[in-house]
């Protein structure tokens, strides 16, 4: 199918991109990976009058570590994360797991992490991962850059804190403690399908083996990815036992508020949320040697 006609603007710097966006407001969309935008345009569900192509903005094409924190620029691809030199580190196992199951291996060559966060599909992978690892998103507007914690960035289905005339330029994942591991558990009917249910888990342990920090988030569990704060609170300060995992899983099922669709009923998806949080916790703990 053929998209509706649009005006194409190619930016070579962030300033230029923002200027275009400022000029055209809501009629303009950013083109990065395009792996969500272009299909929507082909069905004419999205009809931007202007596309601002940022793929040539070199300053956005980076993945860097900075004192243990990871920063991913707006045009860094899902596949770049998969192949990053630091991805084998246990501390990044949540990101590693996710990077291998986003969409399919070819789409991942173009799709971007930042783009996925901005698209904020209720069943997307990166939003839940960002929530569980407490990421921040850097947004550039007319008045410069601001940093928005992911909790406030993700607003609703397909809606984020990025306003008209602005664009997200990076996502920052904080430097995890050494005793950190994660897990991304995703159930999909086939590769390329959106998640039927998914859970992002990241655990940091203290020297005494109790939980220092816990990040637990669900995808395909509501209008937007959600943190299961109740489960996180249950874990902090405690030793992770099978009973605790069960309790955390129950909290996740409770929190999950999915829609019934061709992938499954509400009951089933809520049940899966619990199952996947439990599996995620067990895998994270196994990775921590526990």
């Amino acid at each position: 199918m053929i998209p509706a006609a649009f005006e194409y603007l190619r930016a070579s710097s962030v300033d230029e991109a923002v200027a275009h966006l400022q000029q055209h407001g809501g009629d303009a969309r950013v083109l990065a990976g395009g792996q969500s935008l272009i299909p929507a345009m082909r069905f004419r569900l999205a009809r931007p009058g202007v596309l601002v192509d940022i793929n040539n903005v070199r300053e956005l094409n980076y993945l860097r570590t900075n004192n243990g924190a990871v920063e991913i620029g707006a045009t860094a691809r899902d596949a770049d994360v998969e192949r990053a030199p630091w991805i084998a580190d246990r501390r990044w196992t949540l990101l590693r797991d996710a990077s291998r199951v986003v969409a399919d291996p070819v789409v991942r060559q173009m799709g971007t992490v930042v783009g996925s966060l901005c698209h904020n599909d209720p069943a997307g992978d990166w939003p839940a991962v960002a929530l569980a690892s407490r990421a921040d998103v850097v947004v550039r507007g007319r008045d410069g850059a601001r940093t928005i914690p992911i909790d406030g960035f993700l607003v609703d289905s397909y809606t984020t804190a990025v306003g008209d005339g602005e664009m997200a330029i990076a996502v920052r994942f904080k430097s995890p403690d050494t005793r950190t591991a994660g897990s991304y558990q995703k159930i999909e009917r086939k590769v390329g399908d959106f998640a039927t249910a998914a859970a992002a888990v990241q655990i940091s342990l203290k020297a005494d083996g109790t939980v220092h920090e816990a990040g637990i988030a669900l995808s395909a569990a509501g209008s937007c990815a959600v943190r299961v704060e109740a489960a996180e609170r249950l874990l902090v300060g405690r030793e992770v036992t099978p009973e605790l995992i069960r309790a955390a899983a129950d909290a996740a099922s409770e929190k999950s508020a999915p829609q019934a669709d061709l992938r499954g009923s509400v009951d089933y998806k809520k049940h899966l949320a619990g199952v996947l949080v439990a599996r995620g916790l067990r895998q994270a703990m196994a990775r921590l040697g526990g």
Partner: protein
Amino acid sequence: MKVKVTVNGVAYERDVEPRTLLAFFLREDCGLTGTHVGCDTSSCGCCVVVLDGDRPVKSCTMFAVQADGHEIRTVEGLAEGAALHPLQQAFWDQHGLQCGFCTPGMLLTAYTLLKHNPRPTEAEIREGLAGNLCRCTGYQNIVKSVQQAAGAV
């Protein structure tokens, strides 16, 4: 809009609407019909081409204007003259195709897979090809084809 795309080593300069998808640009503006279009949701991979040497991309989910100044390899650029690429030979030897419609995309995804991972396991091959659909072969002989090309068979 004017674009200049190097396809299989040849520069193509054309004037296209921005909304022209790369797949249609290759097929209609460059006359290279080896790249196929099989769906409208980026699901099937029949349109896969190689961008800038080693990135497989779904050319139905990319605009031709994005490829301006870049290099594309299509299936027509796999063989060296009359000499088939080992992957092409392998698909032939192992009966890795039947109707041939998914084959160009499969070959090119496999080509990039082997570039990054010259000795893939069977599981890695299956994972790597999961963005390319086939209705005829059930994938089994495609996997064997990639194994042969990787020298593992």
